[in-house]
């Protein structure tokens, strides 16, 4: 059952081939047996899952089941879940049990999905390797000595290892697309404002966006149908009708104009990764699409701009963790200042602390204009690059990452080497555009991701484009050794 897609599971549940309780037991057993190898989950919610599955079976029997009724999924541990610990990968929130659900969690509950547990992640979503998690790193199911990517590494590894057919994730600078690429699955970061951020623990509020991960584009469409919604509680959510993302998957892509940015195929890109991505582009040509060489001249500035904006916003967002209202508090504080400074020193890990300090620096008196103001101007230039490109082409394609999964510890000492992992993904967050990663080949037995960048609110077309590729190729259905 774990090799079936969400679309197939929905059909199987509705035609009573198997029940949601059977399905849930099957996945819970896999998690119990296999997750020791991956460390993809922080919390397993077996009791709640079985209860929800039984309720789903009743609705299925009554014939009034909603879209994802009885389908097991996982939530990234950044989404608040009522009554279930939500840690954000941090010691700071190791004891935090939210008294409410995130809107995304609520949406899945309404759709009848069964939540198996919460997935591991880089602390406060700050990382590209899952090495910053308080709960220890997640291992890549394709190579246990390599990282799964981050920050949504737990969700990506769990889907790749068939511990769940789909999972929620978030993307601030590539945190959905990069782990999806490194784990050989499909992941979509929607347009900024498409998915509610209410109850999704904030990292950098002008960049954060939730999205789905699954093995296929068809499954991502099913998940996004439920995840995307307008929400009064998130003031940055855009009030715009949510289309049926499944309805247009079968559309022809003949005549599609694909922009290929020269900056995404330059120095720093692993030659075998490039070859793999070029082969995928040729497959699109074979399907009747046209490749158009384009330029995004400010690409090189996206990482520097991102590493001002993201830490600056994080430094303000993370002031809320003060040891007073919830979360970790240090032992025996001698006064209020000691309570704040020691709680934060002991509760946050090194990467989070460093980013708060950098962000504080960029926002402090005398530096604001030179750093944050300047970065926001450069951001405008980066967005203009995309605007110009979309006058010529329908969609942009390139590699998701410069190379396949790297080994644990290999970028440990140099933060800048790790940050450059995001070189092809951060620009879309800065511009607020949707992006996705689709498995497109293997290098050294590790997956490679093809990145698809769309225009604003063009998720339906991107999913259609990815689905058409997956109809003609098999990369998305490969399983790591020992999984099938």
């Amino acid at each position: 059952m774990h090799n079936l897609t969400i679309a197939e599971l929905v059909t199987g549940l509705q035609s009573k081939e198997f029940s949601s309780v059977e399905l849930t037991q099957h996945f819970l057993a896999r998690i119990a047996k296999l997750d020791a190898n991956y460390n993809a989950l922080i919390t397993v919610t077996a009791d709640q899952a079985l209860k929800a599955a039984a309720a789903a079976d009743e609705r299925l029997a009554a014939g009034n089941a909603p879209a994802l009724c009885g389908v097991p999924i996982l939530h990234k541990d950044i989404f608040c879940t009522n009554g279930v610990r939500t840690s954000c990968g941090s010691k700071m929130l190791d004891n935090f049990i939210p008294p409410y659900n995130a809107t995304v969690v609520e949406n899945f509950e309404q759709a009848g999905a069964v939540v198996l547990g919460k997935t591991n992640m880089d602390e406060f979503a700050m990382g590209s390797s899952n090495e910053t998690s308080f709960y220890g790193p997640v291992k890549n199911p394709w190579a246990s000595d390599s990282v799964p990517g981050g920050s949504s590494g737990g969700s990506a590894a769990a889907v790749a290892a068939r511990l769940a057919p789909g999972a929620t994730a978030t993307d601030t600078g590539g945190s959905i697309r990069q782990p999806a690429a490194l784990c050989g699955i499909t992941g979509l970061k929607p347009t900024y404002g498409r998915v509610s951020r209410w109850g999704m623990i904030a990292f950098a509020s002008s960049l954060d966006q939730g999205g789905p991960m699954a093995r296929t584009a068809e499954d991502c469409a099913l998940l996004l149908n439920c995840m995307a919604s307008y929400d009064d509680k998130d003031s940055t959510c855009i009030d715009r009708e949510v289309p049926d993302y499944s309805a247009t998957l079968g559309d022809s892509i003949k005549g599609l104009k694909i922009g290929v940015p020269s900056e995404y195929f330059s120095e720093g890109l692993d030659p075998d990764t490039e070859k793999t991505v070029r082969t995928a582009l040729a497959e699109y040509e074979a399907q009747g699409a046209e490749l158009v060489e384009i330029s995004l001249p400010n690409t090189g500035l996206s990482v520097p701009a991102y590493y001002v904006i993201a830490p600056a916003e994080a430094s303000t967002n993370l002031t809320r963790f003060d040891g007073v209202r919830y979360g970790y508090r240090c032992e025996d504080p001698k006064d209020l200042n000691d309570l704040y400074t020691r709680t934060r020193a002991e509760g946050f890990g090194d990467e989070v602390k460093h980013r708060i300090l950098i962000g504080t620096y960029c926002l402090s008196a005398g530096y604001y204009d030179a750093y944050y103001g300047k970065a926001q101007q450069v951001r405008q230039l980066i967005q203009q690059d995309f605007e110009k490109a979309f006058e010529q082409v329908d969609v942009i394609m390139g590699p998701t990452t410069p190379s396949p999964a790297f080994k644990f510890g290999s970028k440990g000492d140099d933060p800048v080497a790790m940050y450059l992992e995001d070189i092809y993904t951060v620009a879309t967050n800065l511009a607020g555009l949707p992006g996705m990663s689709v498995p497109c080949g293997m290098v050294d037995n590790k997956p490679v991701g093809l990145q698809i960048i769309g225009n604003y609110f063009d998720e339906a077309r991107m999913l259609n484009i990815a689905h058409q590729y997956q109809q003609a190729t098999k990369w998305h259905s490969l399983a790591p050794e020992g999984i099938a």
Partner: protein
Amino acid sequence: MSIERQEIEKLATLSRIAIGEDTITEVSERLSSVLELVDQLQAVNTEGVEAMSHPMKATQRLREDEISEINQREAFQAVAPDTEDGLFLVPKVIE
């Protein structure tokens, strides 16, 4: 660009994060290497470019000032480190 020890101490105070004497050099090195990366921005000509505040130029919407949530103090305080009589407890501030 490198960050001086004094500057690290100021940032630690501003961010309310205690930094141990033994880690100041390491923190300073890491921050300096990130600043070196972001300093590439300084060379860009951004004269007349408006700072971007929202990708779709959306503005904050307003709503009527009406009560939409009920008070859930007990539920919210159940997760607090220390409370008394509905108040959050912190170490004594005034002697």
